[in-house]
């Protein structure tokens, strides 16, 4: 297996799927001539031409809607949001058109579209550019929500998302683009949507995570191991539909759970995971499920404040100790 970056993994997925299916095209701001604001689409314009790699004006609502319209006609658009923050302008088309068309039309009109781009915070981008809103999309029936945390997952899941017949919200991370990992080279390497993965097995506590918090969880698990605490790291990978089986199996084994996420606490993804666990593993729980989330504030610009606002291994470790009644 080749070791490549998350960015390259996404780029490969796009390239392979565009080769495989002439109906797949990429559209968004700066995706073509600029090779992507974050260079995810590097080389695609050159390879596939301006018909299939389409630069747009700054008009998120409009080009998201154009993507949905093209999907209604049976194409497979991949719509890039330069970041998911800007998708707030387009959310009506994501939620009111893409997610509902199949239902409203009595099953006649599908919407095989992928909306993708980086979500959450990077470094010091301040309040308007640092939001992790995956729980919003996960709230909406009709959407699937995918958030890979590693290069291999990025590739396998983006390929799955593009092949999927339903609208997929695919949230990457600017801070992940340069991370490296082994990625299978096979053309048919596809990771099914809806499957969590145990990224590190353990016995004493389950640590649920996704996207950027996978690294946080693994670091915390490493630190805990030093203290003889064995943490099982469950990476959701797909946020909706939620792989409750994998979560519950782990909690049935460990009897304790901490959930990490980058976003805000109120009605975050973790709240839903808590709901599932306390309901379906009530008798397995030896302690309340605890959550470690981003601070419940708009993201500050100052570096120290920003650091304090983010979910980090230290807070994860502390939460684990609390569920183990060690603190």
């Amino acid at each position, binding site marked *: 297996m080749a070791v490549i970056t998350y960015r390259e993994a996404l780029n490969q997925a796009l390239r392979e799927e565009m080769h495989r299916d002439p109906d797949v095209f990429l559209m968004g701001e700066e995706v073509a001539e600029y090779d992507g604001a974050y260079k995810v689409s590097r080389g695609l314009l050159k390879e596939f031409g301006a018909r299939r790699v389409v630069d747009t004006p700054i008009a998120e*609502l409009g080009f998201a809607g154009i993507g949905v319209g093209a999907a209604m006609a049976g*194409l497979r658009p991949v719509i890039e949001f330069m970041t998911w923050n800007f998708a707030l302008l387009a959310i009506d088309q994501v939620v009111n058109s893409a997610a509902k068309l199949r239902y409203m039309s009595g099953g006649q009109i599908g919407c095989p579209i992928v909306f993708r781009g980086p979500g959450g915070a990077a470094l010091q981008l301040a309040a308007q550019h640092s939001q992790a809103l995956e729980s919003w999309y996960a709230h909406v029936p009709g959407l699937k929500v995918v958030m890979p945390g590693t290069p291999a997952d990025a590739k396998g899941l983006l390929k799955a998302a593009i092949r999927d017949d339903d609208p997929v919200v695919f949230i990457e991370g600017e801070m992940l683009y340069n991370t490296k990992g082994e990625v299978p080279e096979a053309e048919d390497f596809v990771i099914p949507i809806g499957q969590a993965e145990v990224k590190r097995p353990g016995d004493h506590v389950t640590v649920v995570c996704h996207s950027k918090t996978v690294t946080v969880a693994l670091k915390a698990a490493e630190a805990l191991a030093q203290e003889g605490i064995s943490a099982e790291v469950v990476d959701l990978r797909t946020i909706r539909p939620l792989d409750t089986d994998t979560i519950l199996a782990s909690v049935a084994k460990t009897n304790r759970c901490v959930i990490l996420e980058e976003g805000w606490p109120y009605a975050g993804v973790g709240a839903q995971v808590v709901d599932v666990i306390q309901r379906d593993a009530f008798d397995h729980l030896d302690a309340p499920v605890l959550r470690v989330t981003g601070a419940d504030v708009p993201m500050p610009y100052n570096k120290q404040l920003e650091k304090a606002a983010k979910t980090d291994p230290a807070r994860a470790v502390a939460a684990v100790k609390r569920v183990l009644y060690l603190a």
Partner: protein
Amino acid sequence: MATTAAPARSKSGPGADELRGYLRQLLLIRRFEERAGEMYSLGKIGGFCHLYIGQEAVAVGTIAALRPDDYVISAYREHGQALARGMSSRSVMAELFGKATGCSKGKGGSMHLFDASLGFMGGHGIVGGQIPLAAGLAFAAKYRGTDQVAACFFGEAAVNIGSFHEALNMASLWKLPVVFIIENNGYGMGTALARGSSLLDLAHRSYSYDMANEVVDGQDVLTVKTAMEMAVTRARTESKPTLLEIRTYRYVGHSMSDAAHGTYRTKEEVETYRERDPIVLLRDRMIAATQLDAAGYEALDREVKAEVDDAIQFAESSPDPDPSELWTDVYAPRS
């Protein structure tokens, strides 16, 4: 008033059969909508229901200029376009009744009529939402290299929303084969045009996008058709969008809960517009040209009334969707 050289208007006038076809469609929509209003009052139809009475010539004239493989997309006031596109009265009425036999299996209702087999891409409830969708349908046609055209209907109040602006800019920039049709009936709910738009000549908004436009008399089905033909030709042969402002009027309230007049417009105003009724205009023209007589008109009217009666019976006797339908069509099967 087109800004770029327009394709020549078709020369030979329509024949009696063709006119009879349009008259039938106008009448069908009128009778269908009248009865739908009744059915609403009887509680057979629920939710929001926006009738098309007065605007029939817009749907009939524009859609007559399309090919069967073109796309049609509209807002929530779309019964007329659905019928003009050839969707059966039965499937539309059954949808209004929320029945399993409705065009959207009873799940969409009045605002969400769909028929993929006829390229009828809905019925959309968020003002302006269908405008980028139309551009996307046109994008798909161009992408595939077909010469299909997308026709997009929206009210005059929708020109003030961002979607209109963004979609028209991209449609022009990318030369998409789409016809944007403003159905200017003078009001968006209770808001007269001048209270919502800083510019009264809405067609001129196309200049912001270097796009052709035309202002069209929406009560004359043939005028509408001719204007639409030019726009469709421009889309099909040059792959360029057009903005049509078709001036029309709705005789009825915005939706079933809105009175036809009294609040924001007078009875007299409604009466004045009724004098240029699209059905009467076409009927009288045909009678004058001896293409129709009073008896022929009555027969036609009876025919469409019977069709609507049948549609109501069909809807009435159709089953509700199976309760399990609540859970289907959220996602694609087996995925």
